């Protein structure tokens, strides 16, 4: 991994900067909530955990409902919504989460390569992804699909994604599919509210709270890269990954679209996505396409690589390669 570390280091700054302001805000909210509590208690469904006043949750929810589109928020507004979401997670789940909103790093464009020869179908990546990204346990949402394929096939259509037996199986190979973070993403073009877009570092993200749940992006995606929250997603409180990102693994609600973000909460801090880190065979390569010394550039230069459905012109940043 040769992720280029950002010289400016603006990501950590924002976090420290808001620590002081957080107290003020909480105090303010507490006062406001006490005032509002008397009138609004009746309107709250009893899902708070006793210690906290129900009026506060209502107030936070109210402010969240009318918040702006993420890309139009000022840094202060971004910080405020992050604090509100952290507080709501505490009220609802009793968990102290830390939601970051790190901006993209300079001179970084993420890319991913998948070694078809090495993958043996252990599915460690899937488990790590589910855990890291707080995916819904009720409907068993998974961003990554692993297809077991017979030799002679190149696309997952012919493979089996529901295999349940000891791996690897003789004369078979395995192929992982997830969001390919296309350079020309049809989902972004389709979204009627611009709730999904491509970040400067190439990651296609969703502003969960801005999504209206029309699912036109699912129809537009040729790779089955997007997942919809058909029910209220459920993650046991003790399994919630607490280090979160606004555009990444923070808790979603029903009716919202979500997808792989190359673990934005990790990658923007110079770490590997959970899937790449978990892979026991080293089949997953992730890195900065703009860094000539990165492993991903080495793979693209020296291996035989191919991409799925190049004919559609989506220009995925996800390559398969053969050793």
């Amino acid at each position, binding site marked *: 991994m040769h992720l280029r570390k950002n010289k400016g280091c603006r990501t950590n700054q924002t976090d420290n900067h808001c620590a002081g302001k957080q107290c003020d805000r909480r105090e303010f909210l507490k006062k406001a909530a006490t005032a509002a509590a008397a009138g609004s208690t009746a309107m709250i469904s009893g899902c708070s955990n006793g210690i906290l006043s129900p009026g506060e949750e209502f107030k936070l929810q109210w402010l969240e409902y009318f918040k702006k*589109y993420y890309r139009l928020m000022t840094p202060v507004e971004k910080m405020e919504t992050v604090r509100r979401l952290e507080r709501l997670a505490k009220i609802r789940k009793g968990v102290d989460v830390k939601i970051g909103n790190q901006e993209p790093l300079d001179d970084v464009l993420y890319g991913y390569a998948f070694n078809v020869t090495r993958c043996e179908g252990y599915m460690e990546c899937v488990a790590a992804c589910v855990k890291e990204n707080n995916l819904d346990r009720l409907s068993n949402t998974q961003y990554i699909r692993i297809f077991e394929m017979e030799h002679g096939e190149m696309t997952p259509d012919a*493979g089996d994604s529901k295999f349940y037996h000891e791996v690897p199986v003789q004369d078979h190979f395995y192929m992982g599919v997830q969001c390919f973070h296309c350079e020309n993403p049809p989902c972004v073009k389709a979204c009627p509210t*611009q709730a999904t877009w491509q970040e400067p570092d190439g990651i296609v993200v969703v502003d969960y709270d801005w999504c*209206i749940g029309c699912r036109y992006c*699912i129809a537009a995606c040729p790779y089955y890269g997007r997942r919809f929250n*058909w029910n209220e997603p459920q993650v046991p409180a003790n399994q919630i990954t607490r280090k979160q990102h606004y555009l990444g693994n923070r808790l979603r609600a029903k009716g919202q679209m979500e997808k792989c973000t190359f673990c934005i909460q990790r990658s923007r801090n110079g770490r590997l996505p959970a899937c790449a880190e978990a892979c026991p065979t080293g089949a997953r390569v992730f890195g900065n396409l703009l860094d000539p010394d990165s492993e991903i550039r080495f793979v693209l230069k020296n291996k035989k690589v191919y991409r799925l459905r190049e004919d559609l012109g989506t220009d995925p940043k996800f390559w398969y390669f053969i050793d």
Partner: protein
Amino acid sequence: MKKSLVKDLTAFVKDVTVWSLSGGVGYQLYLCTLAALMMFGLYAYMVQFKLGLTVTNMSDIVSWGFYIANFTFLVGVAAAAVMIILPSYVFKDKDLHKVVIIGEVVAIGALVMCMTFVFVDLGGPLQAWHLIPFIGRFNWPSSLLTWDILVLNGYLALNLMVPAYILFCHYHNRKPDERKYRPFVFLSIFWAFGIHLVTAFLYEGLPARPFWNNPLMGPRFLASAFAAGPALITMVLVIVHTQTTFKIQPEIFKKLRRIIVISAIINLIMLFSEIFKEFYLPTHHSLPAMYLYFGLQGHNTLVPWIWSAIGMNVLGTLMFAFIPGRNHPVFFMPAAILLFTGIWIEKGIGLIVPGLVPSPLGEVVSYAPSWVEVGITIGVLSLGVFVVTLLLKPALIIEQRYENEAGSQATAVQD
């Protein structure tokens, strides 16, 4: 001057309300039944609102289902009013001009249903305000969905404005000023083609879905709409003719029949062309069509539906073409019902589900709507019928009065 306008308007609104709600026991019972069905739909929607779209049978693979299927079909019904508006205003057809108001009211009802169907399909209905231009983010012109929102709302506005103005004038026994409404009529003619083409482009523009990514989609949408829409209008006319004092001339049925036959034949030719392309040398992209017509990997829930739809299409077209000589409305009813239902199935569920199955990764699943989806759909359809009834009843009373008035004036002049 201003005061009298306000007075005229209040009288108009008051009478229209009274006329639309008053009627015999049968009429009241009919309205109550519709209201009960709408309440049932509302209940089903509350269940969906509370628990999320998980109560539907949609999934990440079949991500659009019964709602969007009905929406797509009804856009066609709304657009079809143009087949009456166009001849009556462009070719000055006096017969069709008499029923132009009925076509417009049917279009309004269809549009109300379309928008409700899209709304109930949203995962975040409370977030729908994010779509409002300037307040939210309206991804225009990139997203075809925003185009569709624009054209549907525009068409609804046009179809409300023009008839309201004409009826208002007729109500006060004045001749409507042609210069005032004609531009809007012509705009609405172009707009009608627009709403259906844009809705087709919504699907046609997705290379991810080979079943939809087909340039014939737009023209075929239009042809099927111009058959199904006038078929529905025929049904409404037959009901009006038999249930009210407003009588429809046989000449009108004859003309509608001609429109329907031609459109239905063009639709069948295009259907044949599509089937030929899918099955002559089947490719990987023919899998959705195989799934639709013959079933894939044992998933064949759609098969009986599509074949009965094609049967109804062909039979309906033949009946319209060869009803021997008579233009009596009773003979049209079965043909209209057959054709309408056939196209409904084919342009609804037979279009949406195969677009999504097999999934982009090759998975094949079955889909049938859940009770919530069926319940909400019944509710929305009842809402549409309700709207059409409440608008049509006063409209016909006003038109009839206006014509009688004009008739008696003419006789008075002759005397």
